[in-house]
């Protein structure tokens, strides 16, 4: 298993968040999530400008095995979506933490970091699932 990027926050639903310098938050799915799903064949992206509640439906990732909802881990407004995924969903498989980002949100309230996982806490979660 590869090292988890240390500068990200994680969720129990296997998503990651990066707090950008301009105050926005970039969101994607983790390496573990893409490996469990297998080769992605379709990504459904939200409209820019959409207001999301924490836990709201943000995107759908679909592989040959399964279609999974991606929930918004925070409340915010969609500022940008990764348009490249529409034609090449497999970017997520190759580079989940980089070019495979899914959505950038403008948080609409202060981010509750206690509701999210540190890299160590997420690693513990993965280890527990692996047992």
């Amino acid at each position, binding site marked *: 298993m590869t090292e988890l990027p240390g500068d990200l926050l994680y969720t129990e639903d296997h998503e990651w968040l990066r707090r950008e310098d301009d105050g926005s938050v970039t969101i994607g799915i983790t390496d573990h999530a893409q490996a469990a799903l297998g*080769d992605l064949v379709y990504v459904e992206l939200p409209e820019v400008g959409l207001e999301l509640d924490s836990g709201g439906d943000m995107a759908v990732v679909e592989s040959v095995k399964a279609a999974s909802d991606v929930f918004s881990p925070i409340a915010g407004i969609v500022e940008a979506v990764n348009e490249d995924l529409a034609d090449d969903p497999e970017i997520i498989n190759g580079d989940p933490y980089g070019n495979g980002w899914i959505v950038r949100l403008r948080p609409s309230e202060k981010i509750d970091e206690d509701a999210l996982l540190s890299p160590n806490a997420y690693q513990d979660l993965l280890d527990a699932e692996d047992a």
Partner: protein
Amino acid sequence: MKTLIFEKSRNGRRAFAQAPSSVDDAAIPEALRRKDTPRLPEVSELQVVRHYTRLSRQNFSIDTQFYPLGSCTMKYNPRACNSLALLPGFAGRHPLGPVSHGQGFLACMYELQEMLKAVTGMQGVSLTPMAGAQGELAGVLMIQAYHKARGDLERNEIIVPDAAHGTNPATATMCGCVVRELPTGSDGDIDIAALKAAVGPKTAGIMLTNPSTLGVFDRGIVEVAKIVHDAGGLLYYDGANLNAICGKVRPGDMGFDVIHMNLHKTFSTPHGGGGPGSGAVGVGSRLLPFMPIPIVRATERDGATWYDWIAEDELPQSIGRLSGFMGNAGVLLRAYVYMRMVGRDGMRRLAEYATLNANYLQARLRDVGFQLAFPKRRASHEFIVTLKHEAREINLTAMDVAKALLDHNYHAPTTYFPLLVPECLLIEPTETESKETLDNFVAAMTAIVTEAKGGKSFKEAPYTMPVRRLDDVKAARQLDLAFRPPG
């Protein structure tokens, strides 16, 4: 790839069975006649017979191979069901003929309704849904109609456990409901605390399969029913796994308000290939007024039993018609014959042997080293093996094993479902398999893992089938399925 039938086509070649109709087409208005000939292959009768016989021999079927496809209950379809359903009186009956001409058929349908009520513990049964998915649709529509009739208009949430069949949330969504997903506890039962937190004044109902798709019977079902009912919601039973409990436990007694039964699973009508299926629905007392029509009724008339349809104006709150007539009549007849053949005692026995076979196979696979997803639980009629260790350590995934099994002449078990178990195979042997078949299957599974440990790769399997490993990723990304005839 072998020749397509279109490629065998030669101009002017004809089959006697397809000779031009003797009907005078002068009666067809000019505007409705086609201008050009249809693009159908022109082949001889013998070519057609050989072509489709060859295709059928490339197929896996219950008649030719062990078919342990979890969640699908691929049991043997007795020949007697076929031959009796095809009796001329049934096969020649016109659905628009007068009721007096179809008393025999209607009597069978009435008795089928009664038998399904008895085996599920429900108060009413409608046979009209054409497949499991339509049965689900009917069930959720009835739940909605119930709340609406009470003026309880805010209830638009359907709770669905994360282990559910994908059809459950799809049905709820199609009916315009909001789906709330419920987590499963580590022992496979529903997380009661999460359920308590999920129910409320918006709860329309919950959709459950019990035994669940995890192959275990939810021991908290009575408490689940109470929590949902106390919150004002109704309970929907997905009958996919009814085979495990037939004649032993009844959904009506567990507290369910509505159930759909896959007659093509539990009651052994032909299954697969897209149908025809049957998703008969059963309801408790709350939902009786909302059942889909037609429903067969029996009354006394001149000292004899008379069967007819319950008319639309007699069931004004019905969710309506789901098909032109009454479901797939031939499928319903096969299920009727099957139920009459096995009888009350046989109903119990089929569940006992289905669970015995599953538990035997589970124990044997565990003993030869496979990891069970729920090792502490007894299997219902199916169980889950997880290959997550094999995937990591010897690069042998669930898909590899499934494909390698084809080379051993077994249909693959269900793969990668339910979604919450990684690298899983969902295995359902059904009651109609012998111990020898199960033992041979264990030997094949063992051989595959042994060979993989010895360094053999199964990434290209199957090796012996007419079609090799398909590129399912490419197939999903490039949805180009149309055949264009040459020229």
